[in-house]
């Protein structure tokens, strides 16, 4: 279980303190899927980075299975069982897709395992294994590879920051199936930051973050109707539901 307690993040911007995250507390149970949604610029990605240790909060603490991990570095949180998929993953000149997946897995992966992970995110596996993770890959390919790196290793908690961004519809359907499978297995807690209705619909609970604060946190049955009516923030939903 992940417990986030009273997180506050007020970084300096042009010498002025800016309120990005304001006293945010929540828990994620084992095997639960929590979808964090809300308007752009509301603090969702920052919250994810605070959980992973990429940003350091000014106040508050984070516990995993009862252990305070607030002081853990990124790599220590990763080794404690937190996986993280970036919204905009970096490129690596000279590194092959196969090597990146092996690094993500923490061991040298055989070709068939690499292919499984790549196929799972809609990449035609063998064509990609020896390609470099550089600017010869499109944004969508990078994004799918990013998700594959998280899938390549078992975690206690996986955080995906807008996994749908930049991905075509066909690949997105495959991703949804991946998330459904992960959720059904109940081995990993999933935190997905998303604006996508199909992902939001999969959630056990939905958390709406706006202006650095939690606007709503409850089961999808309770939160979703409000989202559909756009009462809470401006969540980008499927056009059919907006009509």
């Amino acid at each position, binding site marked *: 279980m992940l417990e986030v307690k009273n997180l506050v993040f007020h970084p300096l911007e042009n010498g002025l303190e800016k309120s990005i995250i304001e006293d945010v507390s929540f828990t994620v149970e084992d095997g639960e899927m929590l979808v964090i949604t809300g308007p752009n610029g509301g603090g969702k990605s920052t919250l994810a980075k605070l959980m992973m240790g990429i940003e350091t909060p000014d106040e508050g603490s984070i516990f995993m299975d009862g252990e305070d991990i607030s002081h853990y570095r990124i*790599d220590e949180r990763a080794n404690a069982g937190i996986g993280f998929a970036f919204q905009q993953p970096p490129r690596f000149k000279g590194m092959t897709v196969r090597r990146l997946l092996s690094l993500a897995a923490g061991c040298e992966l055989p070709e068939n395992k690499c292919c499984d992970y790549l196929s799972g995110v809609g990449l035609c596996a063998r064509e990609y294994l020896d390609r470099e993770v550089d600017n010869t890959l499109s944004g969508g390919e990078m994004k799918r590879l990013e998700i594959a790196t998280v899938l390549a290793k078992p975690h206690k908690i996986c955080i995906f920051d807008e996994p749908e961004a930049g991905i075509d519809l066909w690949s997105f359907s495959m991703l949804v199936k991946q998330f459904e499978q992960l959720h059904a297995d109940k081995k990993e807690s999933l935190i997905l930051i998303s604006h996508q209705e199909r992902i939001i619909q999969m959630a056990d609970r939905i958390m709406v973050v706006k202006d650095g604060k939690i606007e709503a946190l409850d089961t999808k049955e309770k939160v979703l109707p409000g989202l559909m009516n756009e009462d809470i923030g401006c969540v980008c939903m499927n056009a059919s539901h907006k009509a």
Partner: protein
Amino acid sequence: MADIDQMTKSVLEKIDSEGFKQEGAYNLRYNGYSLCHGNTEHITIKRKEDKQGIDVFISGAAKDEQVHIPVVVTESGVTDVVYNDFYIEDGAQVTIVAGCGIHNSGCNDSRHDGIHTFHVGKNANVRYEEKHYGEGEGTGGRILNPVTKIILEANSVFTLDTVQIKGVDSTKRETQVEMGENAKLFVMEKLMTHDKQNAISNMDVYLNGGGSSAQIISRSVARGESRQVFHPKAVGRALCHAHIQCDSIIMDQAKVCSIPEIDAEHVDAGIIHEAAIGRINNEQLIKLNTFGLNGEEAEAVIIENFLN
């Protein structure tokens, strides 16, 4: 078969990735003289009579064959200048594994200048691998100044793969390539300097023949107080294509200067250059941190793959 001491074996392992053996076509130059050599049906090595060095004759019948010509210097204070000429007949397919390793335990400079000329016949395909490496606890410098001249006839292909990873205090590399019709050149230069090392690489590629093409990729990492200067130049004198790409990672107090030069002397010459110098991208480090690698491990992985 010549006896090779353990230190030399150890250096050979560093500079010959295929593994040096006294089999097939080979020539081991050791502290300024040829220690042993062998020929094959299609590859003949002859010692020069007028100066230091060898002539290597590669028959057109050679297909997927290899010749190994490593140089090892283990004596401090040695200055070894050697002239090696390669005559590659039309249609030959060969890999030439060269490389030089210096173990300097003394206080005097050890230096090797390998001056290589390749005459590559029509339709021949040559891969030339050259690794430079230095070691030893002595205060004497480890200096390598290679000069490489390549003459490519029509439809030939030449791949030049050079690596200098560690321990060379000073290097000045001069490379000149003359390309005929439809000749193809692929260059991959990888370099890492550290401490107070100094490296200069000048490369002039002349695309003289119609349809010729060249791809020159240079990747380097400069650490400590080391200094690197790259000056690749492509001159298009016909309908041709060339692409120069220089990427460097700079660390600590190092200095890197990259001067790609493109020169079109024909209206149908298409030449591109790219150059980038920068520190290790923080986002890359963070990404690898999320895999569980600490800062030092992540940095090592980025450098290793960048130079891979």
